[in-house]
């Protein structure tokens, strides 16, 4: 039953993703990509669960490395996206000039 349940979650999420993204203007393709990339760092949650759990030493070490790489992905991804988005300005905003 567990498998079926997870399968449903998976299927619905994929359809939701298709619906959400299909109407993004070309201007935002890069931020969208790096923002989505940051979300894929959600692996960090799984890595934390494993790194803090009762696993053998080797598995804990691997999980800790996963925490490291996923954190780089999450923190870097969100910050870079924010930096990019803050540059997108509409016309006639005097403070936009540097």
């Amino acid at each position, binding site marked *: 039953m567990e498998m079926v349940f*997870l399968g449903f*979650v*998976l299927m619905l*999420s*994929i*359809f939701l*993703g298709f619906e959400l*993204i299909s*109407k*993004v*203007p*070309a*201007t*935002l393709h*890069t*931020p*969208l*990509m*790096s*923002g*989505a*990339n*940051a*979300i*894929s*760092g*959600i*692996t*960090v*949650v*799984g*890595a*934390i669960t*494993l*790194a*803090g*759990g009762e*696993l053998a030493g080797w*598995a804990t070490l*691997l*999980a800790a*490395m996963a*925490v*490291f*790489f996923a954190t*780089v*992905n*999450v*923190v*870097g991804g*969100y*910050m*870079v996206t*924010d930096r*990019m*988005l803050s*540059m*997108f*300005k*509409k016309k006639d905003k005097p403070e936009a000039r540097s």
Partner: protein
Amino acid sequence: MSEELIGAVYIVSAILFVFGLKLLGSPATAVRGNQLSTLGMLVAVVVTLGSTDIIDYRWIAIAAALGAVVGIVAAQRVAMTGMPEMVALFNGSGGLASLLVGWAALGMEGAEGDSQSAFTIITVLLSILIGGVTFSGSLVAWAKLSETMPSGAISFPGQQFVSLILLVATIGCGAAMLAQPDAGTAMLVYAVIALSVLLGVMAVIPIGGADMPVVISLLNSYSGLAACAAGLAINNTILIVAGALVGAAGIILTNIMCKAMNRSLSNVLFSGFTASKSAAKVEGEVKPISPDDAYLILEAASSVVMVPGYGMAVAQAQHVVRELGELLEEHGTEVSYAIHPVAGRMPGHMNVLLAEANVPYDQLIEMDDINRRIENVDVAIVIGANDVVNPAAREDENSPIYGMPIINVDQARTVFVLKRSMASGFSGVDNPLFFKENTRMLFGDAKQSISHMIAEFKG
């Protein structure tokens, strides 16, 4: 915290991700969208840390602190022109994390005693495979983008055959693990990891520079799917939901990029771009123009369209382009920027560069909109773009890029092409645009040529 409560909070963070992605769809709300999605991530991490399953925080604290420092430094240091490389590296980092999570999940105890269920093993293998391909593929993409290795397509005879063998071997190792979950697993896992990493390399090396937007968005999709597989392996719903959202988003972007080149995904992935065989030879005389004369034409124009390409990024010309645009506007000229979906090395590359140079996003026009009124444009200025404005895509059925939608700059009254020399574009296809009656070639460094015109306007 109990598992039910954590699950409930995961729903909240999934909602935040969904709204975050939705708000990323419009320039006005995108900043807030990204913040919502960040909040979603924070909520998910905090509630996970509160789980009763976690008994030891030392490793987590050290790894997370180091990771955060690396991420912050990288994100602040990177220049906007280096963005494609950065995105590729972050992507690879995420893929590696999913691979490691999958691997570590083998250390979990199965539900019925010591051995893992078949479902767990399959999903673990999937997360190692997809994570490994994402990791090494992204590294190769990074190397190509930063020109650490040649950015062109690298192919050798039997390449697809080798890839196929690798894939079959990976599946074979997986099947062996399923057959006897307890014996000799370690060696098989190493084999699967090595094969996955090799597969990632094999998948990306035959893909050349101008196809990079497709690869980057496809790898982005993979990183989501890898997280998704890891989620299935450790039975974590938020990983599945968030990973699937990213996977779907990446596939849509990939599709948009392929459509913009009129090529199928399999064509991009498996057949490194082969230069023209029988395309019509272009003959004629090019008409060079000096920046002084170009200025005189610009001064008389009432509407100007800039068409940037990868060359603008290379020449770092986005700031002078914006300056010229502003001067023209003060002069009473209507200025817009027409951007082809695959211009540059990642989806939306040109838009980011122009945004950095403070070009307002409502002046950036998509291909279809500009083509509708290109005949009324006095001057189209092509800055470091080539294939995306090549009329052969429209006219020459034998051209390898025939059928690719282009910006029809040749239909504008006058076209300036800013170019270093007469070399052909990435695809190696001759560009008849350069020989058209209404085309003027402005040879030299784009930045210098434009600076020259700016000086004329000011002086």
